């Protein structure tokens, strides 16, 4: 709302209005794990963005003379390939750096698709007549009753094994969580007086849903989004490992793990580094999500 409304007394007002962002940061900062998580996540994000600049080689370039070369600190390792090479002589470091791109891409797309759909359906369920609400929620219960990875596997098997289809499948599997979360907050918000007050002021159904109620339900949804970002990365890696996600030349972390399965005993680095990459990223995002929850949840605020 940066229109004419705030122009008139700007200098006067800005001085005594603590920014919401500053307040958020002061709560977030108290949780050290969350701050570390945020730094790691930022590093991850920057790596994904600047992958072509950071990576020494093209991720699919094969160095036939240097297959399964160990990392630099082991006998036989060279600075040419700091983290070693895989079975066909591709540089591990470059592949991991480019892998960050895929993981980030998967996380963003899955969260956006699942959250948009979930919030929309949850809002509708929260405002719908009882029969429609029941119908939607039972449908979501059915989806939740399946083991999530199994359902994603079935979906990918039907749609065909590509990264895009894996993302669609994961988004579909994660969606019910958003629906339930949104519906629950909508129902508790709807009972409050300010919603009645909007109705008395003549707000229509769409305005009530999106302008009045939705902004008040956002905090738990943001936390859920952060946490499901890591779930999405993990699931995509799992699908990749099972051969149902990104297909071999792609430097996706899960797929890299799958490719390296047969060399586990001979060359530890081909499985360890993608595994560590997944672990660190997921851990960082989960820590950050916990901090987000503490900072955004009004019930945990003291003031």
């Amino acid at each position, binding site marked *: 709302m940066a229109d004419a409304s705030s122009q008139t007394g700007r200098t006067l*007002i800005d001085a005594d209005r603590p920014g919401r962002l500053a307040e958020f940061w002061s709560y977030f900062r108290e949780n050290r794990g969350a701050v570390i998580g945020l730094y790691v996540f930022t590093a991850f994000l920057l790596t994904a963005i600047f992958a072509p600049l950071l990576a020494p080689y093209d991720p699919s370039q094969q160095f036939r003379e240097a297959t399964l070369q160990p990392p630099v600190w082991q006998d036989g390792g060279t600075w040419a390939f700091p983290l070693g090479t895989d079975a066909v002589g591709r540089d591990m470091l470059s592949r991991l750096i480019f892998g960050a791109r895929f993981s980030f891409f998967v996380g963003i797309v899955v969260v956006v698709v699942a959250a948009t759909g979930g919030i929309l359906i949850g809002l509708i369920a929260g405002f719908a007549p009882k029969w429609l609400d029941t119908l939607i929620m039972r449908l979501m219960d059915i989806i939740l009753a399946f083991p999530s990875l199994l359902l994603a596997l079935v979906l990918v098997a039907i749609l065909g094994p590509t990264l895009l289809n894996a993302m669609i499948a994961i988004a579909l599997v994660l969606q019910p969580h958003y629906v339930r979360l949104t519906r629950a907050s909508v129902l508790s918000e709807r009972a409050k*007086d*300010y919603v*009645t*007050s909007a109705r*008395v002021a*003549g707000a229509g159904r769409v305005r009530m849903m999106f302008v009045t109620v939705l902004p*008040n339900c956002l905090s738990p949804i943001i936390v859920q989004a952060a946490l499901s970002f890591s779930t999405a990365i993990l699931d995509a890696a799992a699908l990749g490992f099972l051969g149902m996600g990104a297909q071999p030349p792609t430097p996706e972390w899960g797929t890299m793990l799958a490719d390296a399965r047969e060399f586990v005993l001979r060359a530890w680095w081909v499985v360890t580094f993608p595994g560590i990459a997944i672990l660190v990223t997921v851990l960082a995002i989960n820590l950050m999500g916990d901090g987000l929850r503490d900072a955004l949840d009004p019930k945990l605020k003291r003031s």
Partner: protein
Amino acid sequence: MSDAATAARPVIEAENLARRYEVGGGLFREPGIVRAVEDTSFAVHAGKTLAVVGESGCGKSTLARLVTMIEAPSAGRFSIDGVEVTPERWAELRSDVQIVFQDPYGSLNLRQRVGAILEEPLKINRPRMKAAERQEKGREMMRLVGLREEHYDRYPHMFSGGQRQRIAVARALMLEPKLLVLDEPVSALDLSIQSQILNLLNDLQQRMNLAYLFISHDLSVVRHVADDILVMYLGRPVEFGPKSEIFDAPRHPYTKALISATPSADPSRRQERIKLVGELPSPLNVPPGCPFAPRCWKAEDTCRENRPRMEGAPHPAACFFPEA
């Protein structure tokens, strides 16, 4: 229409309003019917205050929901400024009736700035109004309710309870309503703040010639603000009359008991405290006769079998054996 006729016409006139809810009930069970409001008639004129009093669960707030067009009455009719209210006309009549709630912490949207809260009713109901004009009205309203207009861009959580209630009042007045429903507007506030808000409401009423429907369980507040009083018991009116008559000469035993229960600031005044025995009957299972009969000290057999009507002089009361 002449001015005299306009002046005589009440802002709101309700006849036999009723609201019933179905509760419980399943596949094989008959749902029970809660009669939250039954047979309620009243009228409020411009510049006057009608106080609706009664203990909790007597249908006061349901009445507010009917009058503010949040729910449609199950039976009966009411008109606003001479226009018969039907659900189809709700949209056009919205501007005439606004409401202020009890709890100023729940009645403001915490994600909106004060400015947006005030402008929202205009945005919805006056779509042609320019943004600058809207803002000008909002700031003017803030001054009117005694807030500093520099706070126009603040969020509600930065204000105290009394200030928030001022914001709620300002929002309710943005559409220049003719009737303001005040649903226990001061019972969530400190005593010192209560009087400030009551004085503000009084001041605004005179300035804008507003009609108030003042819902309260606090008789000392009602004594201060009301012109007329409607006493309700279990969803039904039991007495309706001018303030002075109700307080000085209550006709219904329930009203008498209610008044005797208000603390008095004057310790020398001897008060005969009437203690009611028994509980409020369940609204699902209202006794067939007078609903107050089980707790009434004057009840006789006829009270338990027949329902008394609102009648009598100098003002109507629903009792077979009125006090005066």
